[in-house]
């Protein structure tokens, strides 16, 4: 009984002490910080370059950072943040990640059977991974595990970004050991899903869905929209071509994100060689 009373008394006294300290010595919370913090996504992904959402808000309020560094913030929320800070808001290019490879199990040759640690970096340590193409996606999901938003899925040993979930934080870009994930403007309709700079015969030996550098897309869209870098076509993201261009690509490596990889014309020879 005495114990209960003593403990209750200690509790009440310490509680009072805390209450009084806060009342008389506490720093007043900045209402601006709270307001801006509510407009943050709260994922603490770190894409802004700060330790988390709260850290970024503190930097914003103290004028050490600019608004718009958070890739996962909606345009309206950013607008409100700018209004609260009394800054003019710049139109921001919203970005999304694209895995520049079409080499799923269906199209890419595997030169070895890898059964080691299930992680792309570890696979790279063992003779550079099991895929025949040394530029292609290893498909063990290091990017998928790094994505804080669950936007990457591994389908048949190929990483696929779901654009509706991707916020463009760029974590996957840094984690990929092959460096084949790119951050591109969300508005761009088509992408080249291949990263191999090798000559077409070399690429075709290891992957039937590779860019063969035929220049058809460059001819159709013009040098200012598409360009060839070595033996690999690239989209000029400053001035991207329209989605219609996918029709000219013989290997369907130039395609929209919704379109599946590969095409009938490519898959057909593989089918005929089978007994």
């Amino acid at each position, binding site marked *: 009984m005495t114990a209960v009373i003593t403990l209750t008394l200690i509790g009440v006294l310490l509680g009072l002490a805390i209450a009084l300290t806060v009342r008389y010595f506490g720093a007043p919370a900045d209402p601006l910080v709270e307001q801006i913090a509510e407009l943050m996504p709260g994922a603490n992904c770190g894409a802004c370059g700060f330790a988390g959402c709260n850290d970024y808000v503190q930097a914003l309020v103290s004028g050490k950072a600019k608004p718009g560094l958070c890739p996962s913030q909606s345009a309206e929320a950013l607008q409100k943040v700018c209004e609260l800070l009394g800054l003019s808001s710049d139109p921001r290019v919203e970005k999304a990640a694209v895995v520049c490879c079409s080499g799923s199990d269906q199209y890419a040759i595997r030169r070895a059977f890898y*059964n*080691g*640690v299930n*992680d792309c*970096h*570890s696979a790279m*340590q*063992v*003779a550079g991974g099991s895929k025949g193409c040394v530029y292609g996606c290893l498909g063990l999901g290091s990017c998928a595990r790094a994505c804080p938003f669950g936007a990457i899925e591994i389908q048949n040993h190929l990483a696929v970004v779901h654009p509706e979930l991707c916020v463009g934080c760029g974590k996957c870009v840094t984690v990929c050991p092959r460096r084949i994930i790119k951050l591109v403007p969300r508005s761009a309709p088509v992408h080249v899903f291949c990263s191999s700079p090798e000559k077409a015969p070399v690429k075709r030996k290891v992957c039937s869905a590779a860019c063969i550098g035929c220049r058809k897309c460059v001819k159709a869209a013009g040098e200012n929209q598409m360009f060839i870098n070595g033996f690999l076509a690239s989209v000029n993201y400053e001035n991207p071509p329209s989605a219609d261009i996918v029709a000219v690509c013989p290997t369907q490596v130039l395609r929209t994100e919704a379109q599946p990889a590969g095409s009938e014309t490519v898959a057909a020879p593989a089918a005929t060689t089978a007994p």
Partner: protein
Amino acid sequence: MTMKPLHFYGGVHPRESKMASAAAIVSAPLLATYVVPLQQHIGVPAKPVVAKGDKVLRGQLIGEPGGFISAAVHAPTSGTVKEIATCLGPAGNQSPAVILESDGDDQAAEPMPALDWPNASPDELKKRIADAGIVGMGGAAFPSVVKLSPPPNKTIDTLILNGVECEPCLTADHRLMLEKPEQVITGARITARVLGVKQVIIAIEANKPDAVALLQEKAVGTEVEVRSLRVRYPQGAEKQLIYALTGRKVPSGGLPMDVGCVVQNVGTASAICEAVDDGKPLYERVTTVTGSPLVAPGNWRFRVGTPYVEAIKLAGGVKADPVKIISGGPMMGMAVYSLDIPIMKNCSGILLLAADEVRQYESSPCIRCGRCNDTCPMGMMPGILSVQIEQERFELAEQWHVLDCIECGCCAYGCPAGRPLVQLMRRAKAEVMTARKAKAAKKA
């Protein structure tokens, strides 16, 4: 006087499976084509000094050292250079290579003049070792001349010749010691002369009593001492070997020369002897081709540039389907996915494993049993480290000396949770090295 078997901390004793230990070394027959990599060593690849269509003779220089840490490459036979292309290495890397089409005559080039080594100056001998393209033949392929040129502030007092061959299955060094004991001992004495050391120890594990007895007999009257060691893997790792023999500990991040030792493989010593006594450059080596799927495992003297597939054909081909082919031994060797890989100066063995010899473990969380700590010869804590590495805490791993890991695989060998400990350590080492390089680049 019988010496108490010497030992080091930790280690394991895997099944030895030295099935080719009784097979005498046979010279491999001449092939039609050799793929001679220009990078058979650690460091910068050699620069080709021949062009397409050139006629070369056996032992002729075809690649000169590309830098300080590099080694010369010589033609394995006479013939025509078909082209200078690239070839696949055991680590999955592409390296420049000279494709040599043999003319079948195997005509030798004028050998370098023999040196009278007891009277030759160390610099003369070093130059010969460099000219003969000699590299460490135990596996690391470090250019020997660099190893034998310690900076002036380091005093070397002990030369250790590594005839331990602690890797299971491999028997190449064992056979070499049995068949060329004079060469091994002379090579050791030449190396000792280069370094100016008086103490020379040839270390052999106790599972090769015939080699111990033979070398002891041949070493009578020389400064060379032959010692038998307790059988324990990884006795042949240089830091462990130095500790077992001298009780000296190589500091973390240090080299054997920091404790006054140089460790050299017996194969390297034999190659040095051939280079000095006969003027013969290093273009062939003894390699064990073994494994239960092979019809006739054995030891062959292969010329560098022999594709693995030819070596396997020589061993009678396979009687069962090999599921894994390893370049080197089962503990530290690298699994290869192509048989077009050529035998290089550091290839001590080609091992084929059958389906029932390869087990895939289901990796589960660390149960903190500490077995890996007991077996780690470097006194590390692989289990706890692996947990941190899985969380990608590479900076912490660096603080915990992950770079000291010698990748011997003892930790993973005994792990009851089937954890890929050595693989994780390798990843952390690679990440730490990349981070260090990035940091250095930032500073510069």
